[in-house]
């Protein structure tokens, strides 16, 4: 299994590099423009559209939190979904999974190797992106006064790992559960993006508040306090639990199905892990 884990990690290095630098560029763009347009930003702070998108423009810290801390995990979450569904359902559809299944590996080992590869890739991406964004902030601090430190930004960006892991494991589960990658990918994307809107819109529409617990973003803090106080332990535990439960469901689904034939759950026989 060790060799498979190493392969799963190694096969993602290009994505790690690409996404890391993409997210550094995204953060650099948004962080660096704030000092220039600060006055205009404050004037826009009360617009409902920003509230609906969870964007707070009241201060630099709030802006960095709601743009960088919110959108970097959101964007990385989309990658996580794409990669998680490709790694199982996609490989099943393109036929490469069959050769892997013919090796002396347990199905659980294959699934765990893929989950570990994905987890390491996401963590590595966030680490590099966090370091890059922290460096951008350090550069900006030379000419703009802010209490946020590069270390705080780095730590806060790393706290996005649980939410991207949660959606990655949901994607992995859906890839094992439904017969087509596209369905798995679309479903996971809907869960993720709908969760983002539910979290923000329910703050404006009290009648939708009952949906909040179902949103992953409810357990992820991208406000200014996340920069100074870090992620709440309870939230991290909830997201961790979601990731673990989704992984267990993925293991069970993969263990109890016919592979290579694109099979809906109700056509599957019972089996054992």
């Amino acid at each position, binding site marked *: 299994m060790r*060799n498979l884990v190493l392969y799963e990690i190694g096969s993602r290095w290009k994505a790690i590099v690409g996404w890391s630098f993409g997210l550094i560029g995204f953060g650099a763009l948004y962080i660096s423009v704030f000092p220039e347009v600060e006055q205009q930003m404050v004037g826009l702070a009360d617009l409902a559209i920003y509230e609906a998108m969870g964007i707070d423009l009241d201060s630099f810290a709030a802006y960095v939190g709601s743009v960088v801390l919110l959108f970097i995990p959101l964007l990385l979450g989309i990658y996580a979904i794409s990669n998680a569904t490709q790694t199982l359902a996609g490989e099943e559809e393109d036929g490469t999974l069959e050769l892997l299944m*013919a090796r002396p*590996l*347990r199905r659980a080992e294959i699934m765990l190797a893929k989950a570990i590869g994905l987890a390491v890739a996401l963590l590595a991406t966030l680490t590099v992106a966090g370091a890059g964004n922290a460096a951008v902030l350090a550069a900006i601090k030379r000419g703009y006064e802010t209490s946020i430190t590069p270390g705080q930004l780095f730590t806060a960006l790393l706290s996005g790992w649980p939410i991207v892991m949660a959606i990655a494991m949901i994607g992995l589960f859906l890839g094992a559960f439904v017969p087509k990658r596209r369905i798995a990918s679309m479903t996971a994307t809907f869960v993720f993006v709908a969760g983002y809107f539910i979290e923000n819109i329910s703050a404006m529409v009290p009648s939708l508040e009952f949906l909040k617990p179902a949103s992953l973003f409810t357990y992820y803090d991208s406000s200014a306090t996340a920069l100074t106080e870090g992620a709440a332990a309870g939230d991290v535990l909830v997201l961790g639990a979601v990731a673990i439960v989704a992984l267990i469901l993925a293991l069970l689904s993969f263990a109890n199905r016919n592979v*290579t034939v694109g*099979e809906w759950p109700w056509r599957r026989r019972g089996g054992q892990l």
Partner: protein
Amino acid sequence: MSGNVIETHDLTLYYGRHRGVQNVDLSVARGEVFGFLGPNGAGKTTTQRVLLDIIRATSGTASVFGLDSRKDGPAIRSRIGYLPGDLALPAQMTGRRFLSLMSSLESRPVDAAFRDELCERLELDPDRKIPEYSRGNRQKVGIVAAFMSRPDLVILDEPTTGLDPLIQQRVMELVREVRADGRTVFFSSHVLHEVQSVCDRVGIIREGTLVRTESVEALTRRQFTRLRLMFRTPPPSDAFARSGVAEISRDRNTVLLEVHSDLEAVLRRALEYGIDDIATEPVTLEEVFLAFYGTRGNAGTNERAHGGTDA
């Protein structure tokens, strides 16, 4: 445990309502090359995937090396080399990297020198990226991966697809070497002449059902006899019109017959018309196969025409 490497009993698999295989009883002895013949969709790949626990039987059992294919998948697969029919290789690596990866996932060490030797014999350049390979070269990568660990059982699904005739012969040599080594090959194909040239026994599967398992020689010999009869004068046109006999052609005094049953009666009838010469012509496995499936691939067409077989 019997001496059989592969055994299935009443193996049945349905994909929802669709038939995969039905009541397949199969046994493959240690050290033999077993040909698994059938048209596309007959159930060949399904059977192989059940043996590897890639898919699971609806009912019945399948065992390999005396182990349950469902419960002991990793132990079984540690002794199997497999070439899928629809071979797909990951795009982002070279052939060598792929073979190294597959080697690293084996439970027993792979002899790198032997792996390189296989590449040489198949004229494969392993240092090219997989997307640059032709269909045939990708197939070679798959063949090397199947043979490189010197597995106790090699399962090959349409192994010569996309290969030129010279390389096809080399693959056949590899198969013969496995047999000479006392190991076993499960050789799935619809290329009949290669099955005929390399296999000891053959199982014919159609519409998910194993219709016959026999030695290649016996199947070829017993299925029907082709007789070329030369008469002194042309016999009547209905001279051999009987169940189990088909008149294939007639050229003045010469009649070509396919005799599926009661050869003795046919010969007696021929003697009645004054025979000058008689010759038997070899029957290829392809012709035997077509007798099962019909010339258009319709199972049983010829069986009905000739009054049935003993399948």
